[in-house]
């Protein structure tokens, strides 16, 4: 069923490989290389599966011994046992060859023979069998529990809306509590309010206590009014349905079941704190008039409940871990401690908030922190390094890695190449409205002229008023700065325009052929700004790029943009991909980051843009004069980003 399973070190040596159903031996290397390049190296390590052509690849990192475990299987299959298999193989392999890794280091990896086939076949067989056996039973219990949950919940809501006077005190508190949850409990941050709601939710969660309460209530109803007997068969039937999973789940021990119900009625340790705070909430509810801010309060209460439920279990553990935590810290400083998720989570949270404060798009900050967590999990820290410093170091490396260009960024070299082939080098600028396309186009043409290349500016912005005049003014200024006399009689920059209202793609095509005839080295095509949601305009842009096949498609984005950057780039790329006729569509090749002087150190937009497209930032605009053109320095940007 599996296509292949490889285990290799992060340094690149394949330690063990299993070829499954298909294949030539080399079939594993190409997909795994693609996995490494697109996932691990681009810091998209958040979710652990990746599709490449017809295969799905799942992987696991061992950061302690620097190993990677990859399994590949056909995309159309859904194998449920793969995750468990990887975990089992990981544990077994690590334990079996622990000596080689720890003592002999790299030479151990090189010289060691990793004869893992028998163990692997055994684990594979176990995993396949367990998945086969488990399948029918899983479905049954799940169905039962869902159904029972639904019935119980319905019952609770009906009970909450009806006011109950004559029932037991506990019942009253129970209903009032649920009433407060369902209706507007004032969400003031008082522990008292939240405790019972949390406890109330806990009560909600334990079906057994609720069922016990239902039983009592319906006994009372039987005693009170005969007409309610019609309802009893239904709830009884529902109760019976509810009973079944209990019996199934807990097996045969009836004694245990009875104990559970006893604890509910007697007010056990779990319910104690609830009872202490009950009077306060009960009084509070009677005084206030709930229902005015129903919707909002309900949501916030849910969230508050959620937070409290999470915090409550963590509180006792924090108390227990107080002393142990101190020793753990000392141990961590001196000895060798391996990083766990719990250690890293608070630090990562802080780093994520820090990144978001520095204007990195929120979803990208989350993905980045996830990827760094995956890379560090299980890693052994050196002496005198704290968790914070390790995480910061890893995050810094990840950020520098993202900002490093994945391909060569040398426009002048490519222009020289095009010059040699006697054709103009075409650059297209696209972006949303008002980011600085025309200004930066002028700056880039100035830079090109300084390096001795002649430039033709194609005014394909036929929509905005004054666009053509703006470019004409720039042309005049540039020609004044670099007159033809100083460049051997040729005009270094010229404007090709056809006025307003015409088709941009046609003007671009004419401009390129004009440049070829006249021997211009570079053609800079200025397009109109357009919002990424505007479908007809995006189609027009895609058509311009598909028809004219420019050498470089630059997306101009301003550094002030925040989460919008992600949306803009994704939609621009999608539009270009959708409307291209070719097999491999022309996407955005590079990014121009403008208005960099307006942000002090909130440089997160650079990270968002390069992360989304994995294309480099070619130019950075830092002002409105011709000299304000820079290239990106990854280390400086990351330093500004990590600065507190």
């Amino acid at each position: 069923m599996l296509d292949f399973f490889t285990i290799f070190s992060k340094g690149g040596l394949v330690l063990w490989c299993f070829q499954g159903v298909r294949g030539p031996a080399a079939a594993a290397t190409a997909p795994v290389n693609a996995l490494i390049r697109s996932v691990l190296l681009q810091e998209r390590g958040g979710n652990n599966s990746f599709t490449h052509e017809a295969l799905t690849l799942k992987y696991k990192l061992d950061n302690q011994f620097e190993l990677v475990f990859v399994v590949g299987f056909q995309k159309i299959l859904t194998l449920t046992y793969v995750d468990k298999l990887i975990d089992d193989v990981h544990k077994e392999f690590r334990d079996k060859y622990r000596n080689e890794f720890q003592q002999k280091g790299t030479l151990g990896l090189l010289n060691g023979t990793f004869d893992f086939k028998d163990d692997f076949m055994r684990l594979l067989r176990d995993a396949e069998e367990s998945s086969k056996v488990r399948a029918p039973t899983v479905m049954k219990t799940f169905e039962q529990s869902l159904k029972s949950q639904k019935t119980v919940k319905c019952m609770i809501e009906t009970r909450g809306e009806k006011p109950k006077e004559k029932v037991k005190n506990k019942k009253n508190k129970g209903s009032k509590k649920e009433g407060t949850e369902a209706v507007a409990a004032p969400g003031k941050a008082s522990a008292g309010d939240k405790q019972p709601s949390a406890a109330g939710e806990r009560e909600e969660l334990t079906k057994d206590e609720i069922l016990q309460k239902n039983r009592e209530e319906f006994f009372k109803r039987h005693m009170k009014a005969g007409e309610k007997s019609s309802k009893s068969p239904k709830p009884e039937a529902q109760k019976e349905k509810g009973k079944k999973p209990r019996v199934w789940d807990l097996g045969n021990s009836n004694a245990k079941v009875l104990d559970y119900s006893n604890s509910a009625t007697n007010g056990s340790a779990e319910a104690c704190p609830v009872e202490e705070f009950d009077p306060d909430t009960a009084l509070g509810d009677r005084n206030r008039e709930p229902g005015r801010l129903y919707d909002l309060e309900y949501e916030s209460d849910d969230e508050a409940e959620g937070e409290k439920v999470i915090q409550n279990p963590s509180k006792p553990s924090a108390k227990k871990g107080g002393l142990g935590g101190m020793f753990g810290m000392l141990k961590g400083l001196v000895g060798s401690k391996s990083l766990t998720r719990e250690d890293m989570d608070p630090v990562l949270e802080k780093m994520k908030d820090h990144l978001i404060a520095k204007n990195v798009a929120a979803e990208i900050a989350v993905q980045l922190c996830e990827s760094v967590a995956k890379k560090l999990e299980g890693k052994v820290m050196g002496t005198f390094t704290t968790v914070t410093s390790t995480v910061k170091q890893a995050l810094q490396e990840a950020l520098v890695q993202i900002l490093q260009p994945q391909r060569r960024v040398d426009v002048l070299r490519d222009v020289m190449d095009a010059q040699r082939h006697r054709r103009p080098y075409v650059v297209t600028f696209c972006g949303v409205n008002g980011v600085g396309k025309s200004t930066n186009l002028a700056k880039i043409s100035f830079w090109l002229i300084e390096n001795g290349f002649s430039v033709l500016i194609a005014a394909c912005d036929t929509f905005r008023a004054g666009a053509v005049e703006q470019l004409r003014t720039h042309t005049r200024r540039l020609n004044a700065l670099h007159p033809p006399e100083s460049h051997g009689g040729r005009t270094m920059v010229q404007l090709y325009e056809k006025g307003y209202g015409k088709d941009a793609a046609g003007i671009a095509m004419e401009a390129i052929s004009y440049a070829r005839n006249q021997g211009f080295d570079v053609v800079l095509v200025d397009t109109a700004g357009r919002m990424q949601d505007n479908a007809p305009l995006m189609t027009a842009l895609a058509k311009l790029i598909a028809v004219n096949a420019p050498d470089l498609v630059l997306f101009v984005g301003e550094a002030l943009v925040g989460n919008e950057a992600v949306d803009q780039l994704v939609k621009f790329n999608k539009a270009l991909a959708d409307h291209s006729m070719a097999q491999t569509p022309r996407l955005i090749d590079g990014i121009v980051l403008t208005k960099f002087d307006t942000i002090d150190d909130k440089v997160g937009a650079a990270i968002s843009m390069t992360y989304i497209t994995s294309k480099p930032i070619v130019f950075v605009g830092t002002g409105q004069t011709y000299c304000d053109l820079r290239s990106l320095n990854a280390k400086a940007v990351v330093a500004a980003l990590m600065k507190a």
Partner: protein
Amino acid sequence: GMAGGLEPHLEALRRELRAPGPALLSVLLALLAVAITFLIWRFVQGRRSSRKAVLLLGLCDAGKTLLFARLLTGKYRDTQTSITDSSAVYRVSNDKSGNVTLIDLPGHESLRLQFLERFKAAARAIVFVVDSVAFQREVKDVAEFLYQVLVDSTVLKNAPALLIACNKQDVTMAKSAKLIQQQLEKELNTLRVTRSAAPTSLDGSATGGPAQLGKKGKDFDFSQLPMRVEFVECSARGSKGEEGDADFEGLEKWLAKVA
């Protein structure tokens, strides 16, 4: 009474400070000796341990990890794209005193500069592995990486010996070392101009570094560099494939020279 008691003590103290007695002088001398010893020790330590590493650099898929494995064990291993460095001590075969630390660095674009940064100070020699088969296609990328290595300030200061290993010679389409040298010289010549003309970096430092590669006015030549540059042909896979040995005597001889 009391004042009279203190005065002689104060006088003694003042006398002691003004004219340092033999006790104080000997303490000062001892401290000075310790400081000098410490400095000498650090200096010697620095000299001795500073540069014992031979770095394997190159583009992705040039064959660095396989070359690394072959040099250390002589056996063929399957490899994947490296995402971290590997290092091991390599003993030169016939010379007992010569051993260097071979460090195999990842060639992927997003990692290569980071790892170079980390290990460049410890480099006694650099082996730049080139894929001779894909060279024609990749010449610009090869040249750019080589340029970045050559203009690095630490590399220029230490001037480690440079060997350009033209790998994958077992394939018939592989280019010869001579051709690769000529092409690289031409490409680096162009890069000198374009890289120094690139827009300055954000924090003010120029991208190409203030250093000028080679001599101004003349075409670039590898002999113009401050370090020793050699070209050698090799094949990590070997002509007999996975069972046989690798063909890299030139590389081994050069390593023996460097160690």
